């Protein structure tokens, strides 16, 4: 039976890690476990969960910063922020629908996986909001990095390194992050009937306008009806979100709608529908279908997204929609993940990366979940890992290339 540790303190975690180091045992590190499907499968001797390490340590709305223990439920943080009309600007995706998992996502898990949503293109990724961390490294030392102020260049930025390391460099015990005022108003401008290439051009045009688009997605005809109860107008929907003060949003929406009229039929969605639509885009609603059909999350230059999909369509069965101005492609394969094909085309189109988010166990065991890196970068990353977790205690296999 796998021993499950749930320490309720940083010192408790450090004690477990030191014991593991002494026993030469490995640890799977989880928060709420709702995103455990991300990355390669982990084979570890024991499991450590941070779920009992909970609580908001400090929150001063006027300073726009929060410190919370890593196991604090994301829902608790979002509720507390909402009371003060603030939010996590990077809009973390909820992975439960896609993975069909249950449980509570934790704030530590959000940062460990650097989970960001549609607003990433304007507000940065989770890592950009993360100001400071405490973590336990593979030797069982408790380490502080960063701080609780926005501008801080004191020493090496280990904070960025820990964000997105999927628990392989250390166990996050406390995170301090920046929050932003929640925009009091929002609207979505919809351009209907564009093909993928036209949509990419329209999204680029919208981002170049002085209207501060905070979300730019293209929902192809095949997925359009799956959003907001099917009430988007007929045809593919290219959707552009505007947020801010009410007067400002309506001025900008008019300006944007006018600028885009020449491309296709333009309609507008109110704040309520906008909120639903963008949370569905964030959570990849069309492909959260309870199946194990392979799902890729591809990040490329916005101009390359639609080219990738067009090239793949000539070779295999694939469905796709786009976020991040077309640069984030959610690719759902009909049968085989076609990893070699997907990754070869990405390289040919100027580079980027494909993450295999979901697939059956057979594929997951055989395909490196994260984009393999060029040898010198992979070597360097391995050297970095050794400096944090010399015995490879944490999440063995998670980020490695399956050979």
């Amino acid at each position, binding site marked *: 039976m796998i021993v499950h540790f749930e320490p309720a303190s940083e010192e408790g975690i450090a004690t477990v890690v030191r014991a593991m180091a002494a026993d030469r045992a490995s640890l799977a590190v989880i928060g709420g476990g709702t995103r455990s499907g991300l990355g390669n499968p982990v084979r570890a001797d024991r499991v450590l969960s941070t779920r009992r390490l909970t609580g908001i340590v400090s929150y001063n709305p*006027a*300073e726009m910063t929060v410190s919370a223990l890593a196991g604090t439920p994301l829902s608790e943080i979002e509720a507390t922020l909402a009371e003060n009309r603030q939010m996590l600007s990077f809009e973390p995706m909820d992975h439960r629908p896609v993975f069909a998992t249950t449980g509570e996502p934790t704030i530590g898990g959000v940062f460990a996986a650097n989970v960001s949503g549609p607003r990433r293109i304007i507000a*940065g990724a989770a890592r950009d909001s993360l100001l400071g961390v405490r973590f336990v490294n593979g030797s069982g030392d408790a380490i502080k990095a960063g701080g*609780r102020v*926005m501008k801080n260049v004191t020493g090496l930025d280990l904070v960025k390194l820990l964000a997105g390391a999927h628990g392989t460099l250390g166990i996050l015990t406390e995170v301090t992050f920046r929050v932003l005022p929640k925009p009091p108003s929002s609207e979505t401008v919809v351009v209907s009937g564009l093909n993928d290439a036209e949509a990419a051009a329209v999204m680029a045009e919208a981002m170049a306008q*002085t209207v501060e688009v905070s979300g730019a997605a293209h929902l192809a005809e095949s997925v359009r009806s799956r959003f907001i109860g099917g009430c988007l107008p007929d045809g593919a929907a290219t959707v552009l979100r505007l947020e801010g003060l009410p007067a*400002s949003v309506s001025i900008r929406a008019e300006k944007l709608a006018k600028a885009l009229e020449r491309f296709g039929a333009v309609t507008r969605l109110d704040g309520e529908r906008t909120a639903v639509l963008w949370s569905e885009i964030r959570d990849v609603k069309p492909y959260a279908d309870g199946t194990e059909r392979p799902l890729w999350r591809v*990040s490329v230059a916005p101009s390359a997204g639609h080219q990738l999909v067009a090239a793949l369509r000539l070779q295999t069965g694939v469905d796709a929609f786009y976020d991040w101005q077309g640069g984030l492609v959610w690719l759902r394969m009909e049968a085989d993940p076609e990893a070699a094909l997907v990754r070869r085309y990405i390289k040919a189109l100027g580079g980027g990366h494909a993450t295999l988010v979901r697939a059956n166990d057979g594929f997951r065991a055989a395909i490196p979940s994260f984009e393999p890196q060029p040898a010198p970068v992979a070597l360097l990353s391995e050297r970095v890992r050794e400096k*944090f977790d010399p015995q490879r205690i944490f999440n063995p296999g998670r980020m490695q290339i399956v050979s």
Partner: protein
Amino acid sequence: MAETIGFLQPRPAVIARRREIAADLADLLPPGCLISDERGLKPFETDAFIAYRRMPLLVALPETTKQVAAVLKYCSRYGIPVVPRGAGTSLSGGAIPQEDAVVIGLSKMSRILDIDFFNRTATVQAGVTNLNISEAVTADGFFYAPDPSSQLACTIGGNIGMNSGGAHCLKYGVTTNNLLGVKMVLFDGTIIDLGGKALDAAGYDLLGLICGSEGQLGIVTEATVRLIAKPEGARPVLFGFASSEAAGACVADVIGSGIIPVAMEFMDKPAIEICEAFAHAGYPLDVEALLIVEVEGSEAEMDAMLASIIDVARRHGVTTIKESQSALEAALIWKGRKSAFGATGRIADYICMDGTVPLSQLSHVLRRTGEIVASYGLRVANVFHAGDGNMHPLILYNINDPEDAARAESAGNDILRLCVDAGGCLTGEHGVGIEKRDLMLHQFTQTDLDQQMAARAAFDPQWILNPSKVFPLEGRPAA
């Protein structure tokens, strides 16, 4: 002056081989790209932290990434320290060399390689100046957001080394938030690419670690940065207050009320007088403290946002409100602010502190800063990025009076400790360099620093890259 900040002892074996090293490096570089004569080396002996200077062994000015790689490969092979340099505008001594170091200057790598409006990126060589990027894209309605005061001179490579900020990062973030990718050379000459036009590269966020690493992890030779659509309009407004405390409290309340202006800059009375005398920007001289608040957007949006800000300012007893009436006036307002350091330099020598504090501590830290500097018998001018709590007290002193200089340095150190004790940090945007190196243990434990140094060693096992900087000389791992 008596130096209180130490450097590593020069390696005698390196000094002894100077002539041979010069000959070898000359072979690796095109003609005119190696400086070895004393007169030529002199301009490289310090940066904008002028109280300290060291003559470098040699200066290499490569023209290509491959040449950078060749020099680094050579230096690592023979254990020769390397100090990377952009424009030499560091305020913390980040580019000050040492007697046994080869300076690698990126000034000849100053080409813009690619501007991509569709994907909103610019790819440039490391020696391109910060302002060059914005100038290259302004006609098409874009800009590059981080805007350090030295943006006319400082290079993008230096900005990445220090993770530079500026006045407008309250809204747009600092360098690390606007950097998409780099080409860089590792200590042994290996050339790697990190990131690119696609967001959030796979694997560890090495790009995030590189940014702000002060030239200790490698030498960046090219960078891809994010471009942003220029707002329709921008309007700086001056708010005068009868006390620094009132201005500080106003800043916290504006942010707390949910408004994030593009910039909120603070000046106290001495700073106002210095800058006004230099720039004739129309700053009010009858106030104790001044805020420059900039809003942007359409006329209607700016009006709406300003109305809310004025409401808050009134609650804090604002005495003067002055909106810029023309583009020229707006430019003058910013000219005054951005030339604050230069203008101060006309009346006295100064050292510039760079601690950041939580907004709720602004008033307290401002008051204590005044008390600390006065207790050393010196004067201070405060001019800083208030919206993000990044303070810049300028301590005025006479560089030719050793006692005065020592007092200024002590006062500066006291202020930085104050910033850390108030929940902030030693440096918000200027970097640790040598200036704050010996205060690192006030902010971090030795265990914290050990972990940072371990990460450093993954990139530079021999500690040849900018080795005298950032980490206290005591407590380093044995070589």
